[in-house]
């Protein structure tokens, strides 16, 4: 998704002047912060389906690859947060190609951290329960971190 966004972003960023691209990005970043804080209702595009069990039965290699692709790209899953959408929009409107690649690597690392931490916590579903118990705090903290990191990156690239 990051690579597709980066390729399209190269076109968008070449065609549109910076103020036209950065204004809606800043506006959406503010809206996402309010959404993650629970102060604004903002629906995000999501497929609202689980990856079917049959995918895992396609073999250790193909099944794993397809499951990871569908989960990792959000093709067929739920999305409790709007932050991946914000990062994708930033990649489209402002982030340079190399930054899009590193953002994708960071996103992939986080998707690995979740099951690793869950297994370390016991692998019995209690990690997910703890996550839900602190959902709002985690949503606000990660939203602030995401917006701060995006802003920092764009300032450093621009100077």
């Amino acid at each position, binding site marked *: 998704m*990051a690579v597709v966004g980066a390729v399209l972003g190269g076109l968008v960023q070449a065609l549109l002047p910076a103020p036209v691209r950065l204004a809606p990005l800043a506006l959406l970043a503010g809206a996402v912060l309010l959404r*993650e804080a629970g102060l604004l209702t903002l629906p995000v595009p999501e497929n609202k389906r689980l990856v079917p069990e049959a995918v895992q039965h396609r073999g250790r290699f193909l099944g794993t690859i397809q499951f990871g692709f569908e989960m990792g790209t*959000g093709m067929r*899953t*739920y*999305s*409790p*947060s709007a*932050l*991946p959408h*914000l*990062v994708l929009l*930033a990649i489209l409107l402002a*982030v340079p190609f*190399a*930054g*899009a690649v*590193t*953002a*994708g*690597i*960071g*996103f*992939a*690392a*986080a*998707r690995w*951290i*979740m099951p690793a*931490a*869950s*297994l*370390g*916590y*016991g692998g019995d579903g209690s*990690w*997910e329960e*703890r*996550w*839900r118990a*602190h*959902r709002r*705090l*985690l*949503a606000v*903290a*990660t*939203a*602030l*971190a*995401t917006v*701060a*990191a*995006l802003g*920092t*990156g*764009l300032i*450093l*690239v621009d*100077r």
Partner: protein
Amino acid sequence: MTADPIGRTTGARLRRALSHPLTVAVPVVAGAVVPAVLGATSGTGDVAGTALALLAFAWAGLAAGYANSGST
């Protein structure tokens, strides 16, 4: 190794504490300010500045991905 009332060893308790969603969130969230702090001290347009920008974008992806950990 001492075990708690439900039989967990010290190592298991430590691993569980380090794997708690809030514990994992600390470096994910706090790390986002590192490029800004280091960037404030680096020169303009230099290699270090570019590397810090790439690190910042990576951290944006990391925090955004961790925010989606509630989905399975």
